[in-house]
């Protein structure tokens, strides 16, 4: 009994211990920086979880590193860890087991106030599974289905807690147009039943949020004036008291009265920053008319839209480019539903050629996130330049979600989220040999590799020690 307690205590300690990210030196690698030119036979020095040097590290500097801090990546490629531009990682363990599924806050059509970070389970078994294929960061968002789904977050796929994983929250406010809300809210009285209803609900909520925002602006102005008046009041009173002139006012000055604050509304509070574009608005839309609705509403409320899905986006590629609307898309999207009937494999190529910034997501946005590099590979098979495809799973999503100052590239000063691969990074037959998140070398292990070893070790070649 005592032994068990000791073991348990030790385990808990381990879990809570800060990640001891030691400094690392990757040598002789082909460095695909994404942000700049690729370097053949370069070094990457990682210090305090950050990328310190990219290029050549002097032998004097290299001599300071012990053998277990040096990774010889000769013949291999180093590139930024992949960025899942849209996912539900950490929000679900088993889709059909409700107790483990926190993806969809299905209590109403407007749940703008809910935050993905509050449902994020950093210990989810899905995270190491995705990481083994080189995914090191992701946008985690509430699933679609409501008109306002809630707020997303950008996380790194490491750490034992949400706090350690989190980079930004909210990253965006998520809205669904088209079939989703109609299907989710088709019970009588529950919510809008048509695309017309969806659009009018959006307008009315944005209008309320605008008024809410303005009422707080007015209140803040009044409050600022009140503070000023209050600060000046003692002086004012003193001057009155000291005033001996014959035309002195008979009334003693009253202390200033604080203005009444508007009622707090957390739902409108969540929507308000989207107005004016301070916070990104992510619109999930597929059909052409839904995409147009996104453009109209974005114009009306000066939103900063990102299109997610975009089955028909290629049909108005140059308009999206002109309006500077990026598209988060799944290259393998199928004409499997009514609203995705326009889906074609050439979407990514067409959008990119028109000048639209694209980032990629997988079809299964939780258990299937590990297929992200193959989605990029598929886009290349259908005409997208390879460097754009790699950018669409590294730096482009970082730019779209506002974290490109420190994520998505191999660059001095960037967070050390990077991977080493033994071949073309988009080929399924390529092995990811090292995954480094926040400067920490991650163990290439998951519940799935553990199960395979438990039941089939004798059939499997011993795994290469990274």
């Amino acid at each position, binding site marked *: 009994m005592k032994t068990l307690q000791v073991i348990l205590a030790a385990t808990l300690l381990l879990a809570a211990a800060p990640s001891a990210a030691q400094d690392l030196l990757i040598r002789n690698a082909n460095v695909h920086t994404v942000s700049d030119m690729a370097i053949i036979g370069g070094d990457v020095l990682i210090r305090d979880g950050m990328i310190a040097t990219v290029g050549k590290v002097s032998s004097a500097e290299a001599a300071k590193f012990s053998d277990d801090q040096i990774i010889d990546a000769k013949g291999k490629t180093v590139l930024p860890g992949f960025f899942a531009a849209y996912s539900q990682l950490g929000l679900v363990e088993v889709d059909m087991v409700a107790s483990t599924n926190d993806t969809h806050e299905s209590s109403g059509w407007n749940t703008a106030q809910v935050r993905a970070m509050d449902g994020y389970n950093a210990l989810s078994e899905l995270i190491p599974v995705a990481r083994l294929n080189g995914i090191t960061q992701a946008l985690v968002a509430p699933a679609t289905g409501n008109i306002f789904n809630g707020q997303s977050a950008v996380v790194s796929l490491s750490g034992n807690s949400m706090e350690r994983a989190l980079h930004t929250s909210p990253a965006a406010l998520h809205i669904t147009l088209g079939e989703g809300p109609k299907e989710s809210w088709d019970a009588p009285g529950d919510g809008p039943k048509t695309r017309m209803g969806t659009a009018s609900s959006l307008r009315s909520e944005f209008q309320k949020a605008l008024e809410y925002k303005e009422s707080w602006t007015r209140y803040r102005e009044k409050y600022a004036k009140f503070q000023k008046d209050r600060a000046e009041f003692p002086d004012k009173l003193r001057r009155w008291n000291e005033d001996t002139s014959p035309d002195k006012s008979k009334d003693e000055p009253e202390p200033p009265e604080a203005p009444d604050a508007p009622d707090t509304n957390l739902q409108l509070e969540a929507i308000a920053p989207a107005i004016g574009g301070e916070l990104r608005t992510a619109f999930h839309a597929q059909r052409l008319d839904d995409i147009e609705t996104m453009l109209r509403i974005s114009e009306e409320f000066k939103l900063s839209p990102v299109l997610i899905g975009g089955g028909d986006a290629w049909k108005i590629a140059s308009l999206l480019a002109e309006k500077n609307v990026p598209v988060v898309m799944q290259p393998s999207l199928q004409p499997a539903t009514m609203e995705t009937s326009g889906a074609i494999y*050439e979407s990514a190529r067409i959008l990119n050629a028109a000048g639209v910034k694209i980032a990629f997501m997988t079809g299964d946005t939780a258990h299937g996130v590990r297929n992200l590099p193959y989605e990029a590979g598929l886009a290349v098979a259908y005409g997208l330049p390879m460097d754009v495809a790699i950018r669409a799973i590294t730096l482009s999503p970082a730019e779209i979600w506002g974290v490109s100052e420190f994520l998505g590239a191999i660059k001095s000063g960037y967070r050390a989220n990077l991977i080493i691969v033994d071949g073309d990074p988009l080929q399924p*037959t390529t092995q990811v040999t090292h995954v480094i998140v926040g400067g920490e070398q991650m163990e290439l292990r998951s519940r799935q590799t553990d199960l395979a070893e438990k039941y089939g070790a004798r059939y499997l070649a011993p795994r290469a020690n990274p």
Partner: protein
Amino acid sequence: MMKTGIPCRALVLAALALILPMIALSAPPYDGSGATPLALRGGKIYRISAAPIDSGTVIIRNGLIEEVGGVNQVTIPSDAVVVDVSGKSIMPGIIDAHSHMGVYSWPGVDAHSDGNEATSPVTAQVRAEDGINLEDPAFARARAGGVTTVLVLPGSANIIGGEGVVLKLKPNALLSVMKMAEAPRQIKMAMGENPKRVYGGRDQLPSTRMGTMAKLREVFTKAIEQKVKLEKYETDTARYEDKKLRWEAKRDEAAKAGKPFDDDAPEPPTPPAKDALSNVLIDVMSGDVLVHVHCYRKDDIQDIIRISDEFNFKIVAIHHALEAYKLAEELAQRNIAVATWPDWWGFKMEAYDATPLAPTILVRANVLTIFKSDSADIVQRMYTEAAKGVKYGLTEEEALATITLNPAKILGIDKWVGTIEKGKQADIAVFSKSPLDIYTRAEMTFIEGRQVYDRATEEATMTHKEFAR
């Protein structure tokens, strides 16, 4: 000008008249289904039955593979239409042993839902072939992924969902033309969560795995009873025929002798009540129908094996089978195949213990292993599924067999398709690169010698134009 112009034009026309038939002969769609041979020359041939040939030729005639070998070994008949496929890959047409195309036609709206006759947990008497929408756009997209043959199965809401049908993906064809004549009958069963969720949700049996097993025993027992009744009816009928002959002889004898005859005519036996469902299960037990069982969890696999022992039928393949790696030896020993995915998992509880290393474990333990799609999306890129198999430890040959020869075996059609071998049906896919390369594209697909997909033609007619604004 006129003087020289006319003969010139005549010359051009004459030349065109000479060239035109040749162009017509050598332009897609190519056709090796008739007497004129078709030669695919210069590609890397993944035969599957044997090692790949780096640069080889396949001769197709009358819809069959007439010859296959290295470019220097194979003599191309002088009347052959020759297609240069140098630098490309040639492989057997891909076979998907688990599809719902047609019974869950695109786009996926309720009106297209014809895959689950979910009105009773056992519907052995229904057939997928009776619910197929021939206009499902997914068929064409599968052809564009090098797929030539699929097993369309009913869904898994029912414990016994009904009979599946093996289709050749011939375009613009009636079901009777698509249906592979040589293929044996196939039936779909389902264990685990799906039946108990569907019927338990209505407070009907089965709401538990126990209920599923009880139901299986009930219907198979009933089928045995029906079989006994049918057999008895057969012997009773024989007895009756015999009695009747004797009675007629007696009657005729009496008539001849002018004697009175008032013996009662023998009563024919009453046939047992018709039972279409039991009839199918009787055929299952006699081995006329190949049994495919949807199972995820290890105990579900063991459960259906127990039933098959009790009622003496053979399971051909466990489908999905995400925990099959936990009993690889037993499956190998019983010669039960596994039709699975390389990496789909976690969508329900029984799919939580999956591992992408499972196919490698199964293959190494000598279990016949198949990658199947169960999806009108994945079917288009089965070669990428095979590539994932290589990532986790299969050899290229093993991986390609999981989508060609191995599915042909479990469908009982490997005598005709699944490899590139002399005498087999010319179901062939030509890829731009190695099929295991993520950047590969199917360029041509042939079914029984006839070209059913041509990438160049499709791209030439593509109209991906922006909308006016």
